[in-house]
């Protein structure tokens, strides 16, 4: 029963949260906690759908979704990095702003159909392949390049990075924009590839799951992939089992990824306590940076 079709469904269900969580992991690695993932995703979902509908090309839709996600994330970036607003409050506001904005501008697109998504190798569309490819790329850039090192340095200790002459705000703004673009692609995937239409509020909490996955993953791209597949896999598997007529404890299964997140958090903090290992969270995560010199 858990054959290729199920795996396909799983990968498809995991793709939006994979993109969004990868983006959020990059932003958080630079020390920015952006709780506006849901708002950026829904913006990408609408912009992507609108562009795909207007041009007839899903590719144009994904590009537009990325651009819109990045654009709206920069509002958050300017507010938190230059005007030093509280990151948690601003992120929450970004989510509400995105939901409201898309509800308003999405009206003309209700009931409109999306162009069909071209298939790719092995019957997997290329957006899924792109998501998978981004995992090693993100890992490599973060851990094996100078830019990645600077980004992580800014996230671990912004004062030290600043003292060394790195432009903390510019690095963070870039990370925020990349996070926004990836969340936008994730949102566009929901409207263009999964649901094939625009509906108000259609991301329905996927952004929050992405945020949970970043913590579950310990801020690592491979962990993000595992988390996205776990969340996506459980969601799809329980639907498949139900459709096959197997009696499954739906509530238990739906709960499983969240339970796993809590267990991982407990393990992380226990490791910190008993082995003296540092937390996986970036040292400056969520702290405002103000250059005093």
């Amino acid at each position, binding site marked *: 029963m858990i054959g290729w079709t199920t795996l396909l*469904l799983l990968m498809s269900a995991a793709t*939006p949260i994979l993109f969004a969580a990868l983006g959020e992991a990059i932003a958080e690695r630079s020390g920015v906690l952006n709780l506006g993932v849901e708002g950026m995703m829904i913006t990408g979902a609408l912009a992507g759908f609108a562009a795909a509908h207007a041009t007839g090309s899903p590719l144009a839709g994904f590009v537009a979704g990325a651009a819109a996600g990045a654009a709206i994330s920069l509002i958050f970036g300017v507010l938190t990095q230059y005007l030093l607003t509280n990151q948690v409050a601003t992120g929450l506001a970004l989510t509400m702003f995105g939901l409201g904005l898309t509800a308003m501008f999405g009206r003309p697109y209700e009931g409109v159909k999306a162009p069909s998504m071209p298939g790719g190798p092995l019957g997997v569309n290329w957006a899924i392949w792109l998501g998978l490819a981004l995992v090693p790329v993100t890992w490599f850039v973060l851990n094996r390049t100078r830019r990645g090192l600077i980004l992580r340095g800014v996230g671990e200790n912004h004062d030290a990075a600043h003292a060394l002459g790195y432009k903390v705000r510019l690095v963070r703004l870039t990370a925020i924009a990349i996070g926004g673009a990836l969340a936008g692609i994730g949102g566009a995937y929901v409207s263009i590839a999964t649901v094939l*239409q625009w509906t108000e509020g*259609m991301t*329905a909490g996927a952004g929050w799951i992405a945020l949970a996955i970043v913590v579950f993953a310990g801020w690592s791209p491979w962990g993000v992939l595992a988390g996205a597949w776990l969340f996506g896999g459980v969601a799809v598997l329980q*639907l498949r089992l139900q*459709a*096959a007529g197997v009696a499954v404890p739906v509530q238990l299964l739906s709960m499983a990824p969240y339970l796993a997140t809590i267990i991982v958090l407990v393990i992380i903090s226990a490791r910190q306590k008993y082995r003296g290992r540092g937390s996986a969270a970036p040292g400056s995560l969520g702290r405002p940076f103000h250059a005093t010199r």
Partner: protein
Amino acid sequence: MNRRTLLASAAALALTAMLPALPAMAQGTPIPEGEKLKVGFIYVGPVGDGGWSYQHDLGRKAIEAHYGDRIETSYIENVPEGADAERALTQLALAGNKLIFATSFGFMDAVINTAAKFPDVRFEHATGYKRAENVATYDARFYEGRAVLGTIAGMMTKTNKVGFIGSFPIPEVMQGINSTFIHLRKVNPDVELKVVWAYTWFDPAKEADAASALLAEGVDVILQHTDSTAPLAKLQEKGGIGFGQASDMAAFKPTPRVSAIIDNWEPYYIKRVGEVLDGTWASHGVWLGIKDGEVGIGEITEAVPAEVKAAAEAMRDQIAGGYHPFTGPLNKQDGSAWLAEGQTPTDEELASMDFFVEGITAQIPR
């Protein structure tokens, strides 16, 4: 959670809502010509949801068209259930609305509280069961529409596998699944009904995934009791047919959407506004169905063969003529007897339905 989620717990208490009108208690006097009646609405979702709230707003537009400048309407959309609803209702009452429609189950307590403060304002609450002298309730027999769709589905399936995307295992949805299954089997003894619970009213991605999971099991006809059009979009992509839910969902005609259950609140709204205008409005609780025009069957498209269409229309007309979709002999899923030959359930029984009928192999999640 939203309007109908609480129905499960409410069901037991809902019984009175299904009884015929309470003793009439005429309220107020006719509204003189030249004086405008202000009518307010609160919606749980956006009017553009294409389903539930959209249909209620069509009702609002219908009374405007019907009564012209004798009335004036306004609405507040996206009202969360709970304390916020009381604020919205108070706002409408203070704005001079003398008749207010609250169109979601979860507005119930807010309606009762606000009604106590504004005794001269009449309230109409959809799908609830708490009433007062100035609070009436109204609901629709969606399961009647399911009997018609089940007839179409049973005749149209080639794989003999029909899928149902359920929201929550509450009586309203259980009635729908049972009614669907009974009428599937009436026209096709070999058909199998596969049920997937989405545990949401509105999550397009999850609804689409549920449709995919059903299609992967060989299902070729899908019914849904969730609010978005995502399952229809999925059917359009992958093949198979489905139905509009709550609204016509005409964008998916002629296929995959081959018909629809439409919640038509217009006749009820027109009637009740008229009663306020001529001073005969009274509190009551009603549960209306196909014969009252409250549950409508959307156009059956040319994708359906003529004999299937005829059978579906015959079923619709039979229900309008008094046939009850739950007519015995019927057993429960565990084989125990439920209804004897020719027997029909009481509205109380239906309002607390928590079991599948015999023949459904799916399990109710516990």
